[in-house]
């Protein structure tokens, strides 16, 4: 049974110190209002997993000191350039980066989704990505001679966390084509969702809607959060990316002082509004 909450902070309270958390990429559904609440709580030592990359939300969490490990194929603000707090943290050695390549993240999540101990994948051999991942192994393809292949262990997040356009009171969440959110929810132990709107009725009743819906079976808890992905947009809605704000973030977050001012204004300062 999905827990329907009425308070963003109650959902944020479910993000515990040290949790391993699957994060969608910027163009999917980022639960930014929730992350602001999490930062206000002062959560520590998160292990972020970019599915397969992350951007603004992860950079914000890193800058706010919430993150111990970033496991991802990339961290970027896209056209706004390098993720400044990630870059600074890596150079300072204050976070551990587990560099990956996109399909390796997907392979690990899919192994968890399938209940398999690992997935194998092509590529990677001879790269420093592989050389630096002692949690990955090269094994022999048993169906061929002298054919090494990389085994990626099941990647089971404690939490999948994202924002979506709509959900119903049964906990069913509509995500459209953003199926990485579904793989995340299947793979994770628990899934926390913020949504633009909790609608009446049953999203599973209409075959068109059902096709893009994560069943409530996988959704632990949920809260309505209007414009919850801001400053990111939300696919299949009219919520566009607030490019001006991201540009401002990229500028302010270049320095620790600027980032502190950003937090004060846009994270701590937004508490009353959220």
């Amino acid at each position: 049974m999905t827990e329907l909450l009425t308070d963003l902070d109650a959902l944020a309270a479910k993000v515990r110190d040290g949790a391993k958390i699957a994060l969608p990429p910027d163009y999917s559904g980022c639960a930014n209002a929730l992350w602001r609440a999490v930062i206000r709580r002062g959560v520590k030592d998160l292990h972020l997993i970019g599915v397969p990359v992350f951007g603004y939300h992860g950079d914000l969490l890193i800058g706010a000191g919430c993150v111990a490990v970033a496991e991802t194929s990339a961290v970027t603000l896209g056209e706004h350039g390098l993720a400044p707090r990630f870059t600074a943290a890596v150079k300072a050695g204050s976070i551990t980066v587990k560099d990956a390549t996109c399909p390796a993240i997907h392979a690990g999540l899919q192994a968890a989704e399938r209940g398999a101990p690992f997935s194998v994948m092509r590529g990677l051999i001879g790269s420093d990505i592989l050389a630096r991942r002692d949690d990955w192994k090269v094994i022999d393809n048993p169906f061929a001679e002298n054919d090494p292949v990389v085994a990626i262990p099941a990647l089971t997040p404690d939490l999948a966390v994202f924002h979506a356009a709509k959900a119903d009171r049964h906990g069913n969440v509509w995500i459209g084509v953003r199926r990485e959110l579904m793989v995340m929810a299947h793979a994770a132990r628990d899934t926390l969702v913020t949504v633009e709107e909790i609608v009446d009725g049953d999203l599973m009743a209409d075959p068109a809607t059902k096709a893009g819906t994560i069943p409530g079976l996988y959704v632990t808890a949920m809260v309505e959060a209007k414009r919850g992905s801001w400053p990111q947009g939300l696919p299949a809605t009219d919520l566009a990316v607030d490019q001006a704000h991201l540009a401002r973030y990229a500028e302010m977050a270049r320095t620790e002082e600027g980032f502190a001012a950003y937090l004060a204004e846009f994270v701590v300062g937004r508490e009353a509004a959220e």
Partner: protein
Amino acid sequence: MSATLSSQSDVRLEEILIHTIAGMLDGLRHVAVGASSPVPGAAALLARARSGERTRVSVLGSEDHNFFTDGGKELFDCAGQGRIDAFFLSGAQIDGNANINLVSIGDPDLPKARFPGSFGSGYLYYVVPRVILFRLEHTKRTLVEQVDFISAPGFSEPNVYRPGGPFAMITDRCLFDVDKERRRFVLKSVHPGETVESIAENTGFDYDVPAEVPTTPLPDAETLALMRGRIAGEIAEIYPGFAKRVFGLEKAA
């Protein structure tokens, strides 16, 4: 790079690059383009237009030019299935063995510079038959003898599954072919204004230089018209800034 090439008509360097890349894509079934790749994106759209829409183009991060419905994994699955014929990769550093580095300079644990990360390169470079490397800053700082971090190697041992790999490398100065047998870049042509010597001065790795190195051909009038008309419009949906800078200003001039 945004100025027209002084000694040539009014053709811009970007237009030469787009034309050159498109020539490597003609006849392919499916070309995918990663994020932040306006020149390759325009080249793919040009190849599509010239194919009578037979060449499919998938642009990542674009809602309009993205035909995937199975989430973030589908591009990689599609490549693994052999359904993607060409892709583009860049690197903060690229070396003479076609290794690319998208991660860091110096010790990766305490790097002097850190870049976003390897994205899908650690897979796509192995499985896509025509990976076209592009680096629009051709200097000894970027084209190095040995990269500091191998996001993906240019070549692999014979027992490593590797249907894909580097097909060519284009920079703002020249075009390199790839000699897969000898695992070396071969200077194919120099862009207008460059010489065999200027390439040598700005390249940090060894490569082969044939006796004759032509100048990279310019697009003909028909191609230029197509590029500045239809393709400019299409690329503007994805990269409005690029379209304005390269094509919009040009048209207004």
